[in-house]
């Protein structure tokens, strides 16, 4: 227990302060956990390794968690990993159950964070060895499974799937990135736009365009109806929250946290995929999948425990292979090298004190996150009472900052925000569906790389079925999810037929 000597008041205040700042970054639409870590990275050189880590891990946990606040209250995901939180959280808030939704989200985040932390602490090396069993083929199948949620989220199956594929297509615009394994060539770029489009559209501006700006344009089109009064929203009322919401959700909680953790462990699959996978799993296994997307607490639980499950998971490959599990942990490598500490398969054995201190920092960060966010629910909820003519311009301005800073200062990202804001506003009128579109957009690039690389390396289409037992299991999940969606849409069609006579 020598690491206890590292736990100083400074250490604790850095964790807690980091968590606080992280929550703020996460809660502002367009600001992400990655950005919070990036802006504080230079500070860590003077802080020393353990204290620096305390700050960064606090920021990481806080940043991932804070994203649920605007996702639930405004329908704008604060970070890409809280995208699925909007699907059920926002409908709950619109029904006047925003406060309840916040409580569910925060509790789920905490559980997800703690479970993944336990997985990290007890099984890191074993899990890393399991993760390297996943070649391009298995990773492609994981992405394919996550993509099946497109079908499940569609209210009109044909249009939904079309929107999803359109999302994938739009994500492919630009360069086939060399650093992902591509050949660096451009495609799908209209002539004359190469200067702006060579790197394609970035995820974050697309996301806040579709969810933030588009929603504001929608309201503007309606003439910005006067804001509801506090009583109308009934944030506190009518939302009797009790922990009984979690009754029957035990399996969901554990499974989603586990999925989040596992996606974090797989390098390259990416952070946003964690909550999408957890969500699609929860829907596949649910007894009443038709309530998903309409304010189903189980969906909210899956999404939030999934994305916080990511936090511990993404540290597994970082600390046991030297490979970051997501974009935020990629920055943590920088903090290690600044201190001259190598990360790789020997890290945990060589630096037991740092390792223990990191685990402790994560635990404190999760607890601090829970206490702070739970205590602040009432203040968060006040956001909804801010008049729209004040709220909207401020949101727009924050979206601009988020878009501009996400890639460290690229103006085209701000224009992307506008392009996709207008697209999102018009798309709904055309019958396109935004949820499948954004999921296709998020997962499209990974789907491409893993699909093309599988064929490039193995040269045979059958490889997707014969690679390993893991592939077999994934196919069962994929088919299960698809069958579920088809069954549901049939049942819905019948129900509407019966209604319509």
């Amino acid at each position, binding site marked *: 227990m020598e690491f206890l000597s590292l736990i100083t008041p400074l250490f604790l205040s850095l964790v807690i302060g980091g968590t606080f700042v992280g929550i703020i970054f996460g809660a502002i639409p367009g600001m992400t956990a990655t950005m919070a870590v990036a802006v504080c990275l230079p500070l860590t050189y003077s802080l020393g390794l353990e204290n620096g880590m305390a700050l960064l891990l606090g920021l990481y946990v806080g940043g991932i968690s804070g994203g649920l606040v605007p996702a639930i209250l405004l329908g704008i995901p604060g970070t890409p990993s809280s995208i699925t939180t909007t699907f059920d959280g926002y409908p709950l808030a619109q029904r006047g159950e925003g406060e309840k939704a916040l409580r569910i989200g925060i509790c789920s985040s905490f559980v997800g964070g703690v479970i993944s932390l336990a997985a990290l602490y007890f099984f890191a090396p074993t899990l890393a060895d399991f993760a390297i069993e996943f070649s391009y083929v298995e990773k492609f199948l994981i992405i394919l499974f996550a993509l099946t949620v497109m079908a499940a989220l569609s209210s009109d199956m044909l249009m939904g799937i079309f929107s999803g594929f359109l999302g994938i297509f739009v994500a492919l615009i630009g*360069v086939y990135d060399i*650093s992902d394994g591509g050949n660096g060539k451009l495609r799908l770029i209209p002539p004359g736009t190469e200067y702006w489009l060579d790197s394609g559209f970035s995820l974050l501006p697309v996301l806040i365009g579709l969810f933030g700006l588009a929603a504001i344009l929608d309201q503007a089109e309606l003439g910005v109806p006067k804001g509801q009064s506090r009583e109308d929203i009934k944030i506190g009322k009518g939302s009797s929250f009790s922990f009984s919401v979690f009754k029957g959700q035990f399996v969901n909680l554990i499974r989603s946290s586990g999925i989040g953790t596992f996606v974090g462990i797989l390098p390259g699959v990416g952070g946003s995929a964690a909550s999408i996978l957890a969500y699609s799993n929860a829907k596949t296994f649910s007894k009443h999948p038709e309530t998903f997307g309409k304010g189903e607490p189980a969906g909210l639980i899956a999404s939030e425990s999934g994305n916080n499950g990511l936090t511990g998971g993404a540290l597994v490959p970082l600390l046991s292979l030297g490979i970051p599990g997501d974009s935020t942990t*990629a920055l943590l490598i920088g903090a290690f090298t600044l201190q*001259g500490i190598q990360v*790789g*398969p020997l890290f945990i054995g060589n630096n037991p004190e740092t390792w223990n201190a990191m685990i402790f920092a994560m635990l404190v960060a999760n607890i601090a996150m829970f206490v702070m966010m739970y205590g602040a629910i009432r203040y968060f909820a006040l956001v909804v009472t801010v008049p729209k003519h004040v709220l909207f311009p401020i949101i727009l301005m924050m979206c601009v900052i988020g878009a501009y800073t996400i890639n460290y200062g690229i103006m085209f990202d701000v224009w992307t925000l506008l392009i996709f804001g207008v697209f999102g506003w018009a798309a709904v009128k055309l019958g396109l569906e935004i949820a499948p579109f954004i999921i296709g957009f998020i997962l499209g690039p990974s789907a491409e790389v893993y699909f093309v690389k599988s064929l490039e390396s193995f040269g045979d289409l059958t490889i997707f079925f014969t690679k390993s037992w893991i592939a077999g299991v994934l196919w069962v999940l994929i088919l299960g999810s698809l069958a579920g969606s088809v069954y549901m849409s049939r049942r819905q069609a019948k129900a509407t037929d019966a209604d319509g006579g």
Partner: protein
Amino acid sequence: MTYTRRTLLAAASAAALLIQPLAAAAQDLPRNVRMVIGSTSTGGDTYQNSAIIADALAAHLGINVKVDAVGATEAFKALARDKRGNTIMIFHDQSYLGNLYGVTGYDDPFEGYTVGATVAINPGNAYLVPCTSPYQSMDDILKAAEAGERVRVAIQPGGVSEIGFSAMKNAARVRAPGSEANLVPVNTGAQSDKNQAMWDDLADVINGSIQANEQFTQLPQDDRKCMRFVWITARAETLEQAPEAGMGGTTRDDMLKYASPQTSVTLDGEKDFTFDKEFFFLFNKEMDPGVIAQIDTALTEIFAKGEIQERQKEAFFIPNFLPSEAAQQHLGDKRDTYRKVIAEISGDS
């Protein structure tokens, strides 16, 4: 709508008033400098190195220097847009290698921009094999190619990661013309993909680095993840400046075993091929040369003090300051050597 127009007018006239004193104080490096880098990662070596330089410059000149990891294409664009010296760039050999390999978005940096001082070397570029590999050395690999065995090498195409592979092909060509066709690239992306390609048995040799792969070389032989170095591309003179303890369980003497001259990948039958990943400044072509001179002077003073070298070595960089003119000469020669290598092997592959 009158509000908008009026406020905009007010803002514009306020702007006009404020700019006058600022315009007078030009010429020197501005108070707020943006340093763009050719990498999008803030955890990578380019960022690390640039942050060290930016901190030192900011402290020495009493200005603000902000490092922005915008990536190569965007960095070049930002640099091209700004003639006033508010934007400067730091990148490494990728800037001209990308151009030599014909990667989209890479213009010739010697043509379109001004190459400035070099500041550091990352000596880590290396090639590795699995511990179970029959190949003990580069010689074994080149002999295997001669004997007609297919050797698959995982690289990220189009730059720093490929140049060592091109050199291998060139060496194979020099030793036994035609045998270079047996060295085949496995095109992957980031380091994790290259490692994974090895573990999936898709590659026999992978490109990697001392920093990222050293710990894998310390694993027990029976661990599936275990790797061995076969080649470190840096010059011996560069590695000799590294700390004696080396990195992790690999001492400096161990590293020298894998580098020229102890491990030889020939360039032309006489000299060995070497590659040091050097970081250097890039400027807008039309920028005031006074600013370049100012940076050169500042760097000379900073390196004379000796603190920055310590910090660079802590992060496993080899200090390597050459003022602009010397750097241009040096990097130009280096580029010409690699251009020949790439031309030689692309003729018949």
